[in-house]
C-alpha cells in the first residue's frame, strides 16, 4: 500500500535507510509477537498448574495430581524451550536478552536516578520493543509453579540450579528450515535457558502466597501436620528475604510486605490449631481428624 508513495521518493537515501530500519524493526516485532504468544502460554499453563496443585489438599490420592502437574510443567518447559530456540539465532551465548527487560531497572528508573532522569518530558527514554517487562513475570510464574510442585513433593525449596538444570533443551527438529547441516554439528546443539537470580527470587516470593493458601486449605481439611511444616518453611524463606533486604531487586521489598502477611496468616493458623488442640490429648486429636477424613472420603473418591 505504501509502495506508491515510497517509490516516488525511492531516490532519497533517507527513505532507503528507513526501508532498512522498517525491515529490522518488523523482524524484531514479529519475533516479539511470537515470543509474547509463547510466553503468554507459559504464564497461563503455570497458573493452571498452581491451581491444580491446590487440589492436592482435598483429594485422597495426591500422587495423581502431582503427576498431572508434572506433565503440565513439562509442557511449559517445552514452551520455554521454544523461546530459547527463538532467541538462538539472536544471541548465541546468552538468553538473558529477552528477559532483562523484566529486571526492575526498567520499570522503576527511580532507583537509578543518575542514569535515567525523570523530569525531561520530551526526552524520556526510548525502549526497544523487545525488552519489555512482562516476560520475566512469566518466567517467575514458572518458577512459582515448579517450586510449588517441588515443595509438595520434597518439602524443600528448589534451588536456582535445579530450576535451570531442567531448562536444557536439545535442538528441536522442527527447525529444519535452517538446514540439516546444523544438526550434524557434534555436541553443540544444546540450548540452555537461564533463569536470572532476580526472577528466581521473585518467583519464590510469589510461592509463599500459594503456600499460605495451601496452609489455610489444609487447616480447612483437617490436616494438622502441613500447617506446622509450612510455618517452619515459610519462616525460613522469610528470614532469607529479610537477609537479602533491600539489596535485591526493587520488587522484592514490595513483595516482602505480602510475604510477611502470609507468614502471619500461617502462624495464626498454627496458633489456632495448637490452641484448639490443647483441649484434648494429641493422640485423640489425630483420631478425630482421621475419622473425619474417612467420613468424607466416599464422596470425594468419585472424582
Amino acid at each position, binding site marked *: 500500500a505504501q509502495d506508491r508513495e515510497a517509490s516516488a521518493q525511492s531516490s532519497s537515501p533517507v527513505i532507503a535507510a528507513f526501508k532498512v530500519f522498517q525491515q529490522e524493526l518488523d523482524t524484531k*516485532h514479529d519475533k516479539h509477537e511470537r515470543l509474547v504468544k509463547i510466553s503468554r502460554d507459559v504464564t497461563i499453563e503455570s497458573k493452571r498448574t498452581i491451581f491444580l496443585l491446590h487440589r492436592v489438599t482435598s483429594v485422597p490420592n495426591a500422587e495423581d495430581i502431582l503427576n498431572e502437574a508434572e506433565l503440565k510443567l513439562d509442557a511449559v518447559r517445552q514452551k520455554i524451550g521454544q523461546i530459547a530456540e527463538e532467541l538462538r539465532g539472536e*544471541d548465541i*551465548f546468552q538468553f*538473558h536478552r529477552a528477559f532483562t527487560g523484566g529486571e526492575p531497572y526498567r520499570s522503576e528508573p527511580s532507583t537509578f536516578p543518575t*542514569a*535515567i532522569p525523570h523530569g525531561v518530558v520530551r526526552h524520556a527514554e526510548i525502549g*526497544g520493543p523487545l525488552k519489555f517487562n512482562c516476560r520475566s513475570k512469566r518466567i517467575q510464574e514458572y518458577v512459582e509453579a515448579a517450586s510449588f510442585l517441588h515443595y509438595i513433593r520434597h518439602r524443600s525449596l528448589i534451588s536456582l540450579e535445579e530450576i535451570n538444570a531442567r531448562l536444557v533443551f536439545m535442538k528441536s527438529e522442527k527447525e529444519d528450515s535452517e538446514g540439516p547441516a546444523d544438526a550434524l554439528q557434534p555436541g553443540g546443539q544444546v540450548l540452555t535457558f537461564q533463569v536470572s537470580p532476580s526472577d528466581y*527470587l521473585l518467583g519464590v516470593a510469589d510461592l509463599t502466597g500459594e503456600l499460605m493458601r495451601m496452609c489455610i486449605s489444609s487447616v480447612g481439611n483437617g490436616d494438622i501436620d502441613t500447617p506446622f511444616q509450612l510455618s517452619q518453611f515459610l519462616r525460613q524463606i522469610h528470614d532469607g528475604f529479610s537477609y537479602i533486604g533491600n539489596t535485591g531487586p526493587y520488587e522484592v521489598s514490595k513483595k516482602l510486605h505480602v510475604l510477611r502477611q502470609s507468614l502471619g496468616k500461617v502462624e495464626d493458623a498454627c496458633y489456632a490449631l495448637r490452641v484448639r488442640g490443647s483441649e484434648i490429648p494429641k493422640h485423640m486429636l489425630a483420631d478425630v481428624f482421621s475419622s473425619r477424613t474417612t467420613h468424607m472420603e466416599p464422596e470425594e473418591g468419585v472424582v
Partner: protein
Amino acid sequence: MSVTEMFSHIQGFLSADQDIREDIRKVVQMLEQTAREILTVLQSVHQPSGFKEIPSKCARARELFCTVRTTIADLKTKFPMEQYYRFHEHWRFVLQRLVFLATFVVYLETEALVIREEVAKILGIEVVREKGFHLDVEDYLAGVLIMASELSRLAVNSVTSGDYTRPLRISNFINELDSGFRLLNLKNDPLRKRYDGLKYDVKKIEEVVYDLSIRGLTKEAETSGGDK
C-alpha cells in the same frame, strides 16, 4: 543446600550485579558530562553570530567525541559484553543524547542525515549486535528524533539571524524524515510516543516557512540562496 545457604548464594549473585552497576553508573556520569559539554558547544549555532562559526564549532565537537570514544571504551570493560541488554537501561538515555549530538554535528556539516553506521563510528561502537557494544536501531532513531526537535528550534533562530533559506532546507529535510518514520510500523512504545512529538516539529517548521512565504521572503531566499 539449606534455605539459608541458598539465600546467601543468591545474595552473592545480587551483590556482584550491584557492583557492576555501580561501576557502570560512574562511567555513564562521565559520558553525561561530556555530552553536556558538546551540547554547550553546539548551542551557539542558535545565536545570531553562530552560523559563521558552525565549522569551528563542529570541529570542537568532533574533538570532544574523542573523549566520548575513550569513555565508552572504558564502559565496555565494566561488564561481560554478551550481557549488553542486561545493563542497557543504564546507558540508553545518554546514548540517545550522544546519537542526537552526532547526528546534529553531521547535519550542521553536511545538511544530511547521517546513517547509523557512521554514528556508531563516531561513538566508537558497533552496529551489529554480535560484534559487541552496539547501537540499537531504536536508540539511533530516538536520537534522530531529538535532533528533529532541535532543528525546529534552529529554523526559528535562522530567521532571527536573517538566514531565510535554511528554514526551507530544514523543512524539506524534516519532511523526508517524517516520510521515513511513517514507513515504520511503530508499536505503542516510547519511540512511538516520541515520534508523535515529530508532528509538532513539522508543524512548527511549516509555520516558519509560511511566515516567510506570505512575506515573499522565500523567493528572496531562493534567489540569494542559490549561491549557497
